[in-house]
């Protein structure tokens, strides 16, 4: 078991080491994002809201944690489809959960490196003190990681089933979730009917909690409990959906087609 998970981790780490595109996904794009939002924050502070909008930088960094975790699961497996290597993986004695654990661990690594670099740059360039919040950051970090894994499993299941036609979802699903998660604005800004949907996402509670923690230095236990509870539901549903879809894909012969087309 350890050998197989280790081998999968090695495969994905080699991939990041030897692929400029994947490395850019970890560092270049998130840093560019941070710079744009950083300058916008500086500008807004000057003209309208002194010290009132630095949470935007926190939002960028936190959003990257979710995005990295979701991307790590989906891109790791999609890379094997693109490389026509997926059948080699599925004819090896690898359990489905071992595959998911390995890709999730890559998600932890990717999110930690990416968010860590962004937090350091935000401090250096814009004086944004994310680390000053300290330990209360951790529950938010893990919560977004868990939601990223859950969405990664949903996305990957759809890619296994629908192949290339569903690949746009790898990048599309995070952007579908982002406006609903109240990442850059309070959930109260959303229309009432959308707010109800928004509150069903753990990410909404995390970003609401993050804004509150940045302004008060305290983390609301209620917000955390909501995020943890919803994450448990999404993770269970994501895992079950992935397993069910893999069974369907084997039944329909799509797995073999996916690997050879």
């Amino acid at each position, binding site marked *: 078991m350890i*050998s*197989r998970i*280790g*081998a*999968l981790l*090695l*495969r994905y780490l*080699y*991939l990041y080491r*030897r*692929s400029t595109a994947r490395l850019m996904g970890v560092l270049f794009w998130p840093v560019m994002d941070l710079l744009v939002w950083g300058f916008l924050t500086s500008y807004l502070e000057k003209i309208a809201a002194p010290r009132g909008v630095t949470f935007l930088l926190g939002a960028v960094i936190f959003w990257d944690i979710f995005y990295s975790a979701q991307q790590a699961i989906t891109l790791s497996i999609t*890379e*094997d489809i693109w*490389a*026509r*290597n997926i*059948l*080699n*993986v*599925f*004819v*090896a*004695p*690898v*359990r489905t959960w071992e595959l998911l654990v390995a890709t999730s661990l890559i998600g932890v690594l990717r999110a930690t490196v990416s968010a860590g670099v962004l937090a350091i740059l935000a401090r250096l360039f814009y004086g944004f003190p994310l680390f000053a919040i300290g330990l209360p950051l951790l529950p938010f970090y893990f919560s977004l990681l868990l939601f990223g894994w859950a969405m990664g499993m949903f996305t990957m299941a759809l890619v296994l089933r629908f192949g290339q036609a569903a690949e746009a979802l790898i990048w599309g699903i995070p952007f579908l979730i982002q406006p609903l998660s109240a990442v850059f604005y309070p959930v109260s800004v959303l229309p009432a009917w959308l707010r109800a949907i928004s509150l069903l996402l753990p990410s909404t509670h995390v970003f609401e909690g993050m804004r509150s923690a940045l302004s008060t230095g305290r983390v609301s236990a209620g917000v955390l409990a909501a995020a943890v509870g919803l994450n448990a539901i999404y993770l269970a549903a994501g895992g079950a959906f992935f397993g069910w879809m893999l*069974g369907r894909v*084997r*039944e*329909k*012969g799509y*797995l*073999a087609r996916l*690997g*050879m087309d």
Partner: protein
Amino acid sequence: MPETPGRLDAAISVTGLTKQFGDVAAVDGLSFSVAPGEIFGLLGANGAGKTTTIQLLLGLTTPTAGDVRVLGLRMPSDRLAILQRVNFSSAYISLPSNLTVRQNLRVFAGLYSVRNAPAKIDGLLELFEVSDSANKATGALSSGQLTRVNLCKAFLNDPEVLFLDEPTASLDPDIADKVRTALQKLQRERGVTIVYSSHNMREVEVLCDRVLFLAHGRAVAEGTPRDVLARSKSDSLEDVFIAIARDGNTIEPRA
């Protein structure tokens, strides 16, 4: 109950195997067995059901009906135990192109929990004459080198059963001959059972102990290449292939 390894009558035993995709039966009530240590040719035109049969034997696709046993274990319920003892290579799949050959083999050695992996990898690279490519990116290899690296991957876990789907397709005659020679050597030394799919009938005559021709997912001829040839009254196995592909003729077993 699984049979004890070493006492197997058949490395592979298939009974009434059927795979239905909607209205189409890709494999239709197929029954055959492969003896341990045999090189068994699975033959037929495109769409005859060869690849689907191999996928069913490997658990990549679940059957609609029928019983599949590999090394005495039942597929798909014992899938992981079977996959630990078999391997697969195909001309239509590849290895990640941006990893070096050695990195790729190291990853698969881990997936199969291979002991003393570096020595094993070096030995296989040498056997298939691709040691010089060990540190090259896999995407930079020629198709001949890539085929041989794929075979190195396929032999990493000392498989008891090896599934090879057109392994020499797209190879020049020289490299194809080298691949066949290496396969024969390994088969003789290790007694590995090989299920071999190919469109090259000359290759099949040289390599295979027995063959099974498929048409529309059904078995239409089975036996040694010589035996099938004699019963078909054709001049060559290629003529047998063409006749089956065009007319779906069945060649009855010898009475």
